[in-house]
């Protein structure tokens, strides 16, 4: 029993990461109908920013075993800012000129951005994985056989917090309303006086901020940052977004956790080598019965 609780926590941890990245996917997809393959790289850049920030702090003062709240907050904010800046540049250079292009052109452009960022970071770091300084005490909370790291709790809580914030942002603010309007029908939204360009940039910005923050927190959890670290979570997050119903914010969250826990349990039952098989079989299963995903809106139009 305790082993399964542990597996559940393991699943929630990685699922939380998928979920937060999936939020960015789902937002951008909702508005632009575009798979932003470079989204995972924003996550990676966040992780590197976190490393450089925390490392910088460590050079100047010692990070002892109490949790340096201020330092962590700065790292997260910087991680968000870097990811946001990058997303704005990315949108301006690689995606905006393709707004009216055939549907697959932005996909390839995004793949180009992804390859570019991955390899430029590989060169910047000379292929050396960066090791995070210790910010969270890596002691554990023990409940019987179940052990949880502080940073795991932080990660899980933060992912829920992000969901709540994003949900409020989308549902309760004017910008959120604009984003929903553009997602629904870009032309009509423009006619209604919504600044479409600005709204799209804001969508990228909110997705990027989440990915950047997730990168920093994930970096603190796995304690390393490497240039290739964004790619797999990016693909998984996209899977999660589709699973949950692409375009839906709670759906992305649900998809992320669902995927994380299914990976965790399939590792136990079948071995880690089959976790991706299980994930994709589940995806096909869900889509066959609910082609619009778990919480997606049923669309009569073509996706």
């Amino acid at each position: 029993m305790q082993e399964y609780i542990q597996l559940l926590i393991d699943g929630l941890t990685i699922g939380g990461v998928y979920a937060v990245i999936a939020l960015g996917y789902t937002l951008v997809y909702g508005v632009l109908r575009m798979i932003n393959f470079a989204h995972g790289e924003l996550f990676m850049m966040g992780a590197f920013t976190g490393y450089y920030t925390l490392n910088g702090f460590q050079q100047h003062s010692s990070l002892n075993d109490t949790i340096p709240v201020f330092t962590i907050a700065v790292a997260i904010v910087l991680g968000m800012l870097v990811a946001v800046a990058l997303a704005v540049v990315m949108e301006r250079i690689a995606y905006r000129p393709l707004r009216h292009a055939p549907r697959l052109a932005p996909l390839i452009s995004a793949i180009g951005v992804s390859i570019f960022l991955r390899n430029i970071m590989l060169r910047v770091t000379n292929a050396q994985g960066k090791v995070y300084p210790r910010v969270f005490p890596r002691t554990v909370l023990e409940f019987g056989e179940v052990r949880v790291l502080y940073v795991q709790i932080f990660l899980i809580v933060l992912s829920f917090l992000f969901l709540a914030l994003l949900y409020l942002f989308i549902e309760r603010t004017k910008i959120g309303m604009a984003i929903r309007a553009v997602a629904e029908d870009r032309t009509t939204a423009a006619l209604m006086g919504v600044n479409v360009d600005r709204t799209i940039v804001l969508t990228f910005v909110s997705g990027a901020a989440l990915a950047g923050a997730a990168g920093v927190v994930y970096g603190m959890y796995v304690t390393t940052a490497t240039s290739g670290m964004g790619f797999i979570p990016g693909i998984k997050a996209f899977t999660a977004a589709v699973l949950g119903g692409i375009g839906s914010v709670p759906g992305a969250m649900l998809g992320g956790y669902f995927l994380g826990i299914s990976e965790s349990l399939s590792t136990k039952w079948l071995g880690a080598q089959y976790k991706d098989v299980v994930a994709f079989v589940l995806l096909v299963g869900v889509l066959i019965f609910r082609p619009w995903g778990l919480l997606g809106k049923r669309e009569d139009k073509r996706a």
Partner: protein
Amino acid sequence: MSTLREALAQWSPSRLWQRAEARLGRTSAGAAALRHGQYVVLPLAAIAAGLAAEHMTIRWAFAMIIAASYLMLRSSTNLFGIVVLGAMLAYLPEHMDLFERGILFDVALYAMLGIGLNIVVGYAGLLDLGYVAFFAVGAYLFALLSAPEVGGGFDVGTSFWLVLPMAMVVAALVGVLLGIPVLRLRGDYLAIVTLGFGEIIGIMLNNEGATGLIGKHVNSTHGLTNGSVGVFSIPKPYFFDIKLATPHEMYYVVLVGCLLAAFAAERIRVSRVGRAWEAIREDEDVAAAMGVNTTQYKLLAFAIGASIGGLGGAIFAAKQSAVFPSDFNLDVSVNVLALVIIGGMGNVRGVVLGSLLLIGLPDVLRDFSIDLGFVSLDNLGADYRLVIFGAALVAVMVLRPEGLLPSRRRAAEFEQARVIEAERAT
């Protein structure tokens, strides 16, 4: 950005060619000279540029040749051109070194894969991100049938030439099997599911557990596919007495495959089936309402595309003489899809150009270096080739969103959509 693009378009080789054509073409003699001349003059010019490149760096020649071939590809065809070019095509690898022949083989192989995927994506409009699955099926089929037991195969001794049609049939069957559950999905949902299938194939090849379920390998602890050790020592095929040992000989095999695939794809495109695909691509619901059996036609596209992938896989295995599960990853699917789109979806010419750029460029860049006297970056190509490659993908898409050589119909659709958007925006 848009002015830049317009300026570029104004001076693009195709525009220049059109202008020259318009001027010279007023007389019939001039027009005839133009029509035939382009097939002689331009390849010769390209070769001359290549020869001159001995003292330049090879990659600048590459850039020039892309421009030249681009220009040629924009023009229409006649039999005379085909004969001239066919002869040159067969002759030219004679003068390449092994590395360049290797690239040439890869370019031709990926062009063939691109032609196959183009049937699925370009003709039928189904976004498939798991094309590697069919490639892997063909490769492993040949590898397992022909490799000796020490190399992880079964040493059945089936002739390479017999395996080729087998690979096509098996891959097509796999295509249908994968297609049945997923073809009611649309658009990007289909993309992620096919991506999943591509990954699953790789995982299955890598794990004795999964493949062991099918049947324990006689001589190995690694299951049917020999797991991560891969299948190796695959014998080289013979064409009568000629051993197809190097990329040079295998190039002719893939070239013939490429031409047959292109021919078949083109014939199908203009057939009843092709029109059905087009209808499905444009609007699936309308197509269904008009009596097109959409599922059947979509499965057919999947199967035909898959069979070409399987053929490519078998040729790849024979040339490589060793296959590993890690050879069949997402990168292959992404590369093939990207070259189809970069080339200009929905037509074979573009696919070839896309392959030249996407598959050729990263390897050609291996040698890229800059020496300006005051600054010298020796390992620029070796270290940064993928950085440059990524940037090039973005640049091509931004400058030519419809692809380098869109089919006439695609280009028209794109132009129309842009006009409508522009009108709406104002």
